[in-house]
C-alpha cells in the first residue's frame, strides 16, 4: 500500500509544481495577482505533498516495510532506531526526497515572507523556484522513484552502508543540502531581476540574508564532511580532492565570491555583471554537483549509482545554464557599472581581486575534476588527477585570499592614500614579519608553512587593530569595556560578524597548515606486550577482544599509550557486518589542541597474539573544528535582525 500511496503523492506533487510554474509565469507576464496567488497555493500544496511523502518514507523505514525496494536496500532488522530515520537520505532516491522537501520549504517561506515587498519580482521568483522544484520531483517520479515496490517481499533487508552509521553522516547531507538548496533563492531573484529589468540593488538586498544562510550551511556541511572523513574513514585525512568533494567545494568558492562582491554593488553600484554571473555560476555548480554524484560519470568514493538520473540532471543543467546566461546576454547593456574603478589600491579593487582569485580557484578545481574526461575524449588516454595537482595550484591562490581577508575590510574606498595604508597596515605587516621570523627560528620547517602562519598573524592583527580602535573610541565616550565591545558588535553586527567569520577561517587555515606541515605517521606489527614509538608517544599492544552489537560484530584491540607523563588506553577496532563482505575500520583517537593521536587497526592474528596498527600524530587538526564553531558564531551575529528597518 505504501509504495502506491507514496508514488501517487509524488505524481500529484509533480502536476502541481508544473501547474504552479505555469501560473507564476502567466502571472508575471500579465500582472494579474490572482494568478500569482494561485501559484502560491500550488507551492503550498507541493510542500504539503512532499512532507507527506517524506513522512511516509520515514514511516516505512521505522516499520521495516520491506515491500518498498528502497527500504529493503537501505535497512535491515538490526539497524538501530536513529539510523533507520537518517538512513532515509542515505542513498540516491531518499536524498532526492530530502532535497526536494527542503526546496519546497524554502519556496513556501519565500512566498510567505516576501509577499508584501517587491511585488514585481515575486511571480518570477516563484516561477523559478517552482520550476526547479518541478524538475526534482520529476526525477523522483520518472527516473529514481523512492517508492518502487519489491516483490516478493524479502524477510530481511540489505542494511545501511555501515560507513553511514555515524553522527557525522546524519548531519553532513542535511547541512550540505540546506546550503545547496538555499542558493536557489538568490538565483531565483537574479532571474527575476533579469526578466523584469530591475537590475539595481533590490534583488540583492532581498536575498542577502538567504545568501549568508546558504553559504553558512554549505560551509558547515563541508566541515562536517571533513570531520567525518577524519574520524570515520580511517585514513587520517579530512579532504581528498575527491570529485564529489570538489563538486561541493566549487559552489562554496563562487558563493563566497558572491557574498563579498554584492557589498561592492551595494556601496558603489559596481560589479553588477559579476554578481549576476556569480550567482548563476553558484547555482549551476550546485546542479553540477548533483549531476556528478548521481550520474556515475566520475568514479568516486561518494558516487551513487548511475542510470537515467544522470541524463535528467545533465539536461536540466544545460537548460538552466543556457537560459540564465541567455538572459544575462540579453540584459547586457543595462548592466553597466555606475561607478568606476579609481585605483588599484582600493577596497573595490581588493574585492575584485577576491572575485578573481576565488573564480580562479573554482576554475582549477573544475578543470582538475573534468580533466580525466577531457583526456579520454580528446586523446583516448585515461588519467587520474589527484591531490598533488589541486594542492599545487590552489595553495598560492588560498594564500592570496588570506592576505585579502586582512586588506579588504580596512583599506579605503576609491583610492587609498599612503596615510591610510600606513595607519591600517603598518602595524599588522610588522606583526606578520615578526611572526615569520619567530616561526622560522622555532623551526617551523617549510617556507610555505611559515608564510601561511605569517599571513594569518597579519590578518588577525588587522582585525585586532580595527576592534581595538573602535572600542577605544567608545571607551573615550565614557562606556565601560564589556559594554563597549558588546555594543560595538551588535551595532555593527554585519561588519563584526564578518570579522568573526574571518577569524574562524583563520583558525581553519592554521589547522590545515599545521596538519599538512607537521603531522607524522608510522605503521607497525606488534606482538602482545610489544610497543612502537612515535613523536614522543609509546604504543604498547595489550590484547584483542570481541563484542557483539545489534547488527555487527566487533574486534577490539587495546593499546596502552603513554607520553612520559600519563598513560591511557586506546581501542581501535574492526566492525564486521554480515551483509558486507569485508570489515569496516573503527578508528580510535585522542584529540587535543596541539595534536591528535590516531590509531587504525589493520591486520590481526586470529588468536589475538599479533596486531598491525597504523599510528598517526596529527598536529593542530582540532583548530579546524574550532574554526568551524567560531564561523557559526560569526554568522549568527551577522544574521541578527536589523535594528532599524530598511526603507
Amino acid at each position, binding site marked *: 500500500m505504501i509504495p502506491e500511496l507514496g508514488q501517487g503523492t509524488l505524481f500529484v506533487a509533480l502536476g502541481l509544481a508544473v501547474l504552479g510554474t505555469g501560473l507564476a509565469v502567466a502571472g508575471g507576464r500579465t500582472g494579474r495577482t490572482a494568478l500569482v496567488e494561485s501559484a502560491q497555493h500550488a507551492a503550498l500544496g507541493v510542500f504539503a505533498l512532499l512532507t507527506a511523502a517524506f513522512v511516509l518514507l520515514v514511516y516505512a523505514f521505522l516499520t521495516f516495510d520491506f515491500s518498498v525496494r528502497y527500504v529493503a536496500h537501505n535497512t535491515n532488522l538490526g539497524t538501530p532506531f536513529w539510523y533507520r530515520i537518517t538512513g532515509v537520505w542515505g542513498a540516491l532516491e531518499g536524498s532526492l526526497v530530502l532535497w526536494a522537501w527542503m526546496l519546497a520549504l524554502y519556496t513556501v517561506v519565500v512566498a510567505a515572507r516576501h509577499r508584501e515587498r517587491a511585488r514585481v519580482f515575486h511571480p518570477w521568483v516563484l516561477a523559478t523556484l517552482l520550476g526547479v522544484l518541478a524538475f526534482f520531483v520529476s526525477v523522483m517520479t520518472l527516473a529514481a522513484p523512492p517508492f518502487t515496490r519489491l516483490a516478493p517481499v524479502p524477510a530481511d533487508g540489505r542494511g545501511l552502508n555501515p560507513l553511514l552509521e555515524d553522527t557525522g553522516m546524519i548531519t553532513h547531507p542535511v547541512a550540505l543540502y540546506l546550503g545547496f538548496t538555499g542558493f536557489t533563492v538568490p538565483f531565483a531573484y537574479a532571474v527575476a531581476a533579469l526578466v523584469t529589468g530591475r537590475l539595481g540593488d533590490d534583488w540583492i538586498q532581498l536575498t542577502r540574508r538567504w545568501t549568508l544562510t546558504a553559504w553558512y550551511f554549505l560551509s558547515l556541511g563541508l566541515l562536517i564532511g571533513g570531520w567525518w572523513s577524519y574520524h570515520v574513514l580511517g585514513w587520517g585525512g579530512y579532504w581528498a580532492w575527491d570529485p564529489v568533494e570538489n563538486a561541493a567545494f566549487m559552489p562554496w568558492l563562487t558563493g563566497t565570491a558572491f557574498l563579498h562582491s554584492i557589498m561592492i554593488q551595494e556601496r558603489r553600484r559596481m560589479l553588477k555583471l559579476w554578481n549576476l554571473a556569480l550567482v548563476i555560476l553558484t547555482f549551476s555548480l550546485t546542479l553540477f554537483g548533483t549531476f556528478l554524484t548521481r550520474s556515475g560519470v566520475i568514479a568516486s568514493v561518494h558516487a551513487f549509482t548511475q542510470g537515467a538520473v544522470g541524463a535528467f540532471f545533465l539536461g536540466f543543467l544545460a537548460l538552466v545554464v543556457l537560459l540564465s546566461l541567455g538572459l544575462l546576454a540579453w540584459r547586457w547593456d543595462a548592466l553597466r557599472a555606475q561607478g568606476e574603478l579609481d585605483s588599484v589600491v582600493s577596497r573595490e579593487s581588493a574585492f575584485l581581486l577576491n572575485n578573481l582569485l576565488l573564480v580562479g580557484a573554482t576554475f*582549477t578545481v573544475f578543470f582538475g575534476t573534468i580533466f580525466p574526461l577531457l*583526456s579520454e575524449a580528446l586523446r583516448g588516454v585515461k588519467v587520474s588527477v589527484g591531490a598533488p595537482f589541486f594542492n599545487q595550484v590552489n595553495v598560492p591562490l588560498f594564500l592570496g585570499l588570506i592576505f585579502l581577508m586582512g586588506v579588504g575590510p580596512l583599506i579605503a574606498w576609491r583610492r587609498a592614500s599612503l596615510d591610510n595604508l600606513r595607519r591600517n597596515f603598518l602595524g599588522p605587516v610588522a606583526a606578520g614579519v615578526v611572526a615569520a621570523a619567530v616561526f622560522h627560528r622555532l623551526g617551523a620547517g617549510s617556507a610555505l608553512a611559515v608564510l601561511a602562519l605569517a599571513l594569518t598573524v597579519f590578518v588577525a592583527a588587522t582585525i585586532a587593530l580595527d576592534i581595538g580602535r573602535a572600542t577605544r573610541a567608545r571607551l573615550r565616550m565614557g562606556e565601560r569595556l564589556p559594554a563597549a565591545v558588546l555594543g560595538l558588535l551588535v551595532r555593527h553586527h554585519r561588519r563584526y560578524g564578518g570579522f568573526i567569520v574571518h577569524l574562524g577561517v583563520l583558525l581553519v587555515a592554521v589547522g590545515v597548515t599545521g596538519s599538512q606541515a607537521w603531522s607524522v605517521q608510522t605503521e607497525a*606489527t606488534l606482538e602482545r606486550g610489544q610497543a612502537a614509538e612515535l613523536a614522543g608517544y609509546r604504543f604498547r599492544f595489550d590484547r584483542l577482544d570481541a563484542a557483539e552489537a545489534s547488527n555487527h560484530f566487533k574486534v577490539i584491540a587495546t593499546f596502552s599509550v603513554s607520553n612520559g607523563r600519563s598513560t591511557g588506553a586506546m581501542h581501535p577496532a574492526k566492525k564486521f557486518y*554480515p551483509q558486507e*563482505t569485508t570489515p569496516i575500520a573503527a578508528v580510535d583517537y585522542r584529540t587535543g589542541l596541539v595534536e591528535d593521536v590516531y590509531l587504525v587497526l*589493520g591486520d590481526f592474528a586470529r588468536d*589475538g597474539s599479533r596486531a598491525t596498527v597504523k599510528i598517526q600524530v596529527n598536529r593542530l587538526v582540532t583548530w579546524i573544528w574550532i574554526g568551524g564553531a567560531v564561523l557559526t558564531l560569526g554568522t549568527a551575529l551577522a544574521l541578527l535582525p536589523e535594528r532599524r528597518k530598511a526603507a
Partner: protein
Amino acid sequence: MKKKFVVGGLVILGALGYLVYAGLTQSAVYFVTPSELAAGPVPGKAYRLGGLVAPGTLEWHPRTLDLRFALTDGKSTVPVRHRGTPPDLFAEGRGAVVEGAWTAEGYFRAQQIFAKHSEEYQAPPSEAHRAGYEELLRTLRGEPR
C-alpha cells in the same frame, strides 16, 4: 585606467593558466592495464595499474609490513610490492587498482592500493557469513569450539 586593469587581469589569467598546465602535466597519473604496462614500462613515471590479484601470488609479511602480489588482466602479469597493511577489500582473485611507479629492479612499487568497491559486491545476509564471524569471535575470546 581601463587598459591597466585589462592588462592586469590578463596577466593574472595567464599566470593561472600556466599554474594549471604545469600542475596537470606534472601530476596527472596514467591508467594502464598489466598488458599496457608490460609492453613498455617507463621507470619513475606515475601510473595507476588495474587488474586482478592473481591467485597464489599474494605474500603478506606483517612483521616487516612487506606486501607482495601480482596483478593480471588475463594476458600479462605484473609483480607489485607495497609497504603497509593491505586495505580491507583486498584479496586474491579480486580486482584492485594500485598507484605508484615502475622500478628499475623489475617490479611495480605501489604507494597506494585501492581495492575495487562497488554495489555489485555486497552479499545478502547469509548463514555461512554469520557462522564465519561467530567462529572468529569464539577464537578471539579463547572459547572452546
